């Protein structure tokens, strides 16, 4: 077995040093009834690289790769071009195969890139501090609500109808079992929702998304002021982080906590994970933050260095009094994010955002020309909602039969509201071409 270096001779020698007759003897603490005498039946034995690779190629062949079809799917995960240098860096063994930087003297590489990551997140969101990443945007949103509950000592979260439905479900699930109520607004397909009247003295936070799940770009400045007047916090969710290159950042609208799905920068679609959650807030809330934090310090020779810090919030120190049970974050995905964003820089990041918006504007114009199709959005970044003359789910299936990945039917994510049945989300990014838009328009004309 190519991954196991011990030879039978090594094993014999090692057993002799231990003073045991067999490896099985080392398992003598396992009750006899639970000890399996041999390998588990019904499972195949080991295979070579070639055989395993073939098996995965066979899985891949039964999927339609986005690279081989016109592609317009978004809804919280976006297809972007990732520069080659990103994957090279994250596959370096020193990053790929190291652990959480508990021993800072031999993990300065990880610690320094996380410090750079934290700084980049504060710059994009406009916030004062950021942590070293969360699992993804949805779990970061749920942790943000828990943090707002701790700060306000209240237990009611108000969720916008423009929030990604999966994010809403994750927050509701956390609330159901961790003991807070999550009141969700009706699906806000038109982008006209006004939550101000719903905020009361029990509200710990209002959770909004910008651009919204339906693509609308909105100003939450008044909502933030209303939250603050009532002692509540405003949590802003961004599922398309590239939008921050073009849209006013949440901090400038008065958000108290900003969480983003960072997948768009550096991380492939990967069928939904692993992704990387960004989590930023105001300095005064540092000690209520979940997750790992990297801080600057000096070593015994006075040289700058970095360490994990403020661990007294965390489970391995505080145990049942921790701010969160989170142990792992998304270190390597955070590295991919940081390397990609460093390659982009100020100019590249802004241009990438402009390109995405321009492509989406172009797509919206094309689709608006299809008879009986209407674009619902006045504003959007790289994704918008269209109303079809019939249910969207079978239309998307019909497009897939034509090898076009033509967006996400809203009903797939919001199955319980009949009003949304005919709505379709369409996204465009820098990877979208006119050669892709034309077949979509033609196919839509055919199937509608």
């Amino acid at each position, binding site marked *: 077995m190519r991954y196991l270096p011990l030879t039978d001779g090594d094993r014999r020698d090692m057993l002799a040093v231990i003073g045991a007759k067999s490896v099985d003897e080392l398992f003598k603490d396992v009750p006899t009834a639970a000890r399996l005498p041999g390998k588990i039946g019904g499972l195949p034995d080991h295979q070579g690289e070639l055989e395993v690779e073939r098996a995965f190629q066979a899985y891949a062949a039964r999927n339609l790769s986005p690279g081989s079809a016109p592609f317009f799917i978004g809804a919280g995960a976006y297809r972007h071009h990732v520069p080659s240098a990103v994957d090279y860096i994250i596959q370096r063994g020193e990053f790929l195969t190291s652990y959480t930087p508990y021993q800072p003297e031999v993990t300065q590489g990880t610690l320094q890139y996380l410090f750079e990551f934290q700084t980049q997140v504060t710059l994009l969101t406009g916030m004062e501090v950021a942590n070293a990443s969360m699992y993804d945007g949805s779990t970061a949103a749920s942790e943000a609500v828990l943090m707002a509950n701790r700060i306000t000592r209240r237990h009611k979260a108000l969720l916008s109808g423009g929030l990604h439905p999966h994010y809403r479900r994750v927050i509701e699930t956390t609330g159901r079992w961790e003991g807070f109520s999550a009141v969700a607004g009706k699906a806000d397909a038109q982008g006209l929702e006004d939550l101000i009247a719903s905020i009361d003295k029990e509200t710990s936070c209002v959770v909004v998304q910008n651009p919204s799940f339906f693509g609308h770009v909105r100003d939450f400045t008044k909502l933030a002021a209303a939250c603050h007047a009532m002692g509540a916090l405003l949590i802003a969710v961004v599922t398309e982080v590239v939008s921050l290159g073009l849209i006013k950042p949440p901090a400038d609208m008065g958000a108290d906590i900003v969480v983003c799905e960072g997948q768009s920068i550096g991380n492939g679609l990967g069928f939904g994970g692993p992704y990387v959650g960004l989590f930023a807030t105001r300095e005064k809330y540092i000690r209520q933050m979940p997750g790992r934090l990297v801080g600057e*310090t000096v070593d015994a020779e006075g040289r700058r260095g970095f360490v994990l810090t403020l661990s007294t919030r965390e489970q391995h120190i505080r145990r049942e009094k921790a701010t*969160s049970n989170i142990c792992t974050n998304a270190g390597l995905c955070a590295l991919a994010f940081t390397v990609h964003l*460093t390659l982009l820089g100020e100019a590249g990041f802004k241009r990438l955002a402009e390109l995405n918006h321009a492509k989406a504007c172009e797509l919206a114009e094309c689709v608006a020309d299809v008879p009986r199709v209407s674009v619902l959005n006045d504003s959007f970044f790289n994704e918008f909602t269209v109303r079809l003359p019939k249910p969207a789910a079978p239309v998307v299936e019909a497009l897939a039969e034509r090898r076009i990945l033509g967006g996400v039917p809203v009903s797939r994510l919001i199955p319980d509201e009949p009003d949304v049945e005919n709505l379709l989300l369409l996204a465009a990014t820098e990877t979208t071409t006119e050669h892709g838009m034309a077949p979509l328009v033609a196919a839509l004309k055919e199937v509608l």
Partner: protein
Amino acid sequence: MVQSLDRSQGRIGGAAADATPAPAACATFTGNRGLQIEEPLIFELGQPDRCGVDLPEPSRTKDRLNGLRRAGEIGLPGLSEPQVVQHYTRLSQKNYAIDMGVYPLGSCTMKHNPRLNEKVARLPGIGDLHPLQPVSTVQGALELIDSLAHWLKTLTGMPAVAMSPAAGAHGEMCGMMAIAAALEARGERAQRKIVLAPESAHGTNPATAAALGFTVKPIPANERGRVDLAALKAALGPDVAAIMLTNPNTCGLFENDIIEISQAVHAAGAYFYCDGANFNAIVGRVRPGDLGVDCMHINLHKTFSTPHGGGGPGAGPVVLSAALAHHAPYPWIVKDGDRWRIAEEGGEVAGTPLGRLKAFHGQMGMFTRALAYIMSHGANGLRQASGDAVLSANYVMAALKDVMSPAFEGPCMHEALFDDSFLKDTGVSTLDFAKAMIDEGYHPMTMYFPLVVHGALLIEPTESPAKEDLDLFIGALRALAERAAKREHLDAFKTAPRFAPRRRLDETLAARKPVLRWRPSNRPPEGDPLKQAAE
């Protein structure tokens, strides 16, 4: 002694290791030390007009941003591609990693990460799939997830698995929510508020239970490092929801009363949550289902070698017993005839799902890597791997027991646990000893965990090192232990590490005055070679 120093080429013991470091007066002009290169932050390297990508000019259209265009500079530095590659390559060289050698971090299972797994995770048609593509276009992906699920269920002897948790701690949350859901279904959630957890438990266990509103009651360990069965039985009652138990436990020992424990827990109407962090020790040899476990998370990055990546991403599927299976979270994968589909909210409801833990369907990239690892090993190789891991830990224990102090008697499982009594009165602490290992070229073992052992040193070699490498590692530890015992060159412990990219870092300063981001006003501190080089 068994370990030969013949192959050490003078690396261990002897005069060379005792040589004093170059005094500060002989510091280099650049601050670099040979291949150890001082590296600024990207924010100190950038120029506004540099860029590491070439993107086309966007077409000029009227924007549709609702008047909310971002104004002003974001503040991101501009670097060209070669600068970025050099910067992160230099940073990488400041890390220790599995690819460099023995990484004996107990409880973390730093085993070899095969590169085949990286390759298959990136195949077009796997790595680039969108989670919301029509299910007709992702049949292979769903089948792949189901294949991994089948392996996990078969290896654990459990009937169901929830695939979506993003990490071990997230899996714990999933499992404990499933228990809360089952109690709710029985109408006993309000009554059963206590979760029992051994004092030696991972910190995530009490943190998870407390987050769900349970009161955590610690169970003491006996003198053999196992759960005190009598104390456990005395604590069980109609107010107990569950026990959270790691097995093999965090002392690296198998809980030999495990079946009696699970029977007592079930007889009291409670559930048995097993922390599966140490499943790697028993995979292919013991099925947790046979031990009476109700749910267990599996850290794919531990048992099934998905890369740790500097602290994630992980994946924490949770296997569930029949009693908990119908509370599994959305989504799950169903086969109708020859077609796969995803059961999500709004579809048919089987049982009472606890809700949703994460957007989309789970850590697919980790599933792919774990399945490649599992298929490469097969049923026979997985059994061999757990056997080799346990053999290696026992070998380390046997080879060090005369110079270090094992915390407990008898064979261990996959980890060798020592206390600090061998350092008593030497003036050397567990921390000093661990830092001295860095100078010998090793990442330290886990220190001061589990909490039940004084000055704990927890060594987990895994199945990955060759015997020759284990012997070198053992030789280094023996030499250090003997040096401490003789009280020779104690400054080599006190000032360690001397040869790492950084000396000991001031963690108190970091926590007292948190600097969590770079600002233009940040300057490297006095004494920093970066500052001196700049001036």
